[in-house]
């Protein structure tokens, strides 16, 4: 009974984090982007520097009419946002935050679980793109699929490099066996992982599937109201998950001074810094072209990740 309560409490905590952290990232994006462009960003909602802007947005989305195009495949169209959003919730459950089991639910082979489930989220975009009965949506869906196929590989290879280094697939296990010099050792892998993750999330500069100047909003063109908000939430939840994973895999998670007591703070701090970098990249760089994107994945990221794996193997053999 006590165990059940414990598990339920953990899951509730994860759910709360799932609902709060993406909003935090979204609000940060509003403000950071604005200041990087010499603006102020939202200033009214909630009073102090527009802290409640996303809450207000949510209310606005909830009030909007839920439109389904006449020619669309209704059920798939309506199901797609949930398919896009839920995987990130599942992933968030297994990301370790602090030492001594400070994790929603420790899954063995957690690395595989995380990568597997994150790949499912893209199905939501595909379903949305196909079911909208809109050629721009379809193009967006196609681009999403192509991008996913291209970037899943370097991401997996980079993650495999860390798993090799740690000798385990469990996320807490990877963090526990972390040493500070791993960050240098796995630097290339970390960069590849982060970049490929950005591309899987379709964040700028890898946002061809939603390139507004070419295909309006890609797979999400026909969505309105709450379903659209769910897609946006999925994007921000994806940022949280990606940054958390990069922290856990490459930046040592809770490692830092006084890790025993405030380890979770270190994880959150590192995740926040990475989230800031995600936003920073969005503001700084223009969108890549579709063929440049594919070329980047196949000719830059995959070779780098392969070199990283070779390096990991060599160091592992030499040091053991």
């Amino acid at each position, binding site marked *: 009974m006590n165990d059940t309560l414990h598990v339920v409490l953990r899951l509730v905590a994860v759910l709360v984090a799932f609902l709060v952290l993406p909003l935090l990232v979204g609000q940060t994006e509003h403000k950071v982007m604005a200041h990087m462009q010499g603006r102020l960003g939202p200033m009214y909602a909630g009073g102090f520097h527009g802290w409640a802007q996303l809450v207000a947005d949510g209310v606005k989305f909830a009030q909007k009419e839920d439109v389904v195009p006449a020619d669309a495949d209704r059920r798939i169209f309506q199901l797609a946002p949930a398919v896009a959003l839920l995987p990130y919730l599942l992933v968030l459950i297994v990301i370790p935050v602090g030492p001594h089991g400070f994790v929603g639910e420790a899954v063995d082979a957690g690395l595989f679980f995380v*990568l597997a489930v994150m790949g499912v989220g893209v199905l939501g975009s595909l379903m949305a793109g196909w079911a909208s009965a809109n050629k721009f949506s379809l193009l967006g869906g196609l681009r999403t699929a192509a991008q996913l196929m291209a970037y899943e590989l370097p991401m997996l290879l980079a993650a495999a490099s860390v798993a090799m280094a740690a000798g385990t697939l469990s996320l807490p296990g990877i963090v526990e066996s972390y040493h500070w010099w791993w960050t240098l050792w796995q630097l290339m892998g970390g960069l590849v992982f982060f970049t490929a993750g950005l591309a899987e999330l379709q964040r700028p500069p890898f946002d061809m599937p939603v390139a507004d100047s070419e295909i309006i909003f890609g797979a999400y063109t026909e969505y309105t109201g709450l379903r659209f908000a769910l897609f946006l939430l999925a994007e921000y939840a994806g940022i949280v998950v990606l940054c958390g994973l990069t922290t856990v895999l490459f930046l040592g998670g809770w490692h830092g001074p006084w890790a025993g007591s405030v380890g979770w703070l270190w994880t959150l701090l590192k995740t926040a810094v990475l989230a800031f970098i995600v936003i920073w990249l969005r503001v700084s760089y223009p969108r890549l072209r579709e063929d440049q994107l594919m070329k980047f994945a196949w000719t830059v990221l995959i070779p780098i990740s392969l070199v990283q794996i070779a390096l990991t193997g060599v160091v592992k053999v030499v040091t053991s």
Partner: protein
Amino acid sequence: MIHSATHHPGFLSPTGVEITFLLVGLATLGAAVVTVTTRQLVHAALWLVVALGGIAVEYLLLTAEFIAWVQVLIYVGSVVVLLLFGLMLTKAPIGHSPDADSENRWVALAVALAAAGTLVWVVADAFRSTWIDVHHGTGQSATKVTGSSLFRFWVLPFEALSVLLLAALVGAIVLSRRRADVLPPAPDGSTAPHGKDR
């Protein structure tokens, strides 16, 4: 066999795992049947996702955790995405598709039913009194043991497999590459939009 000989849980007192397995199995089977019978192409692919996910859950119930995640990663994350990609490129329509089912569907049904009858009868007859002890070992060791056996006893097939994968990759690239000199001037425009595929 040894385990099955020592204790005989009856058919009529299924455990929780068995009930779960049965329910998930029914869902999986239903999704598979819809996959092969629906006339909407993309629906078939999405039902295939359900079926594959159900099989992943069955793997979990059989304590093959690693295989389950690989199943989700490769099948749901990649194979189905590729299938959907292919469906979109071959212009899968919304709604019923005229070319989903072939004329010989009744023959196929007869063959499948016959095969199913034979197989189920044989299997049920053979393993009538066999029980699996699913609460054996932890997942951690299973993953570890799978890995070490893969790279210790299965290295040669593994390497052969990687060569096969490479060959498939090269083959796919060669197949989908368009050579400008042999390309006929697209007669009806229907082939034109695929210029940049893959």
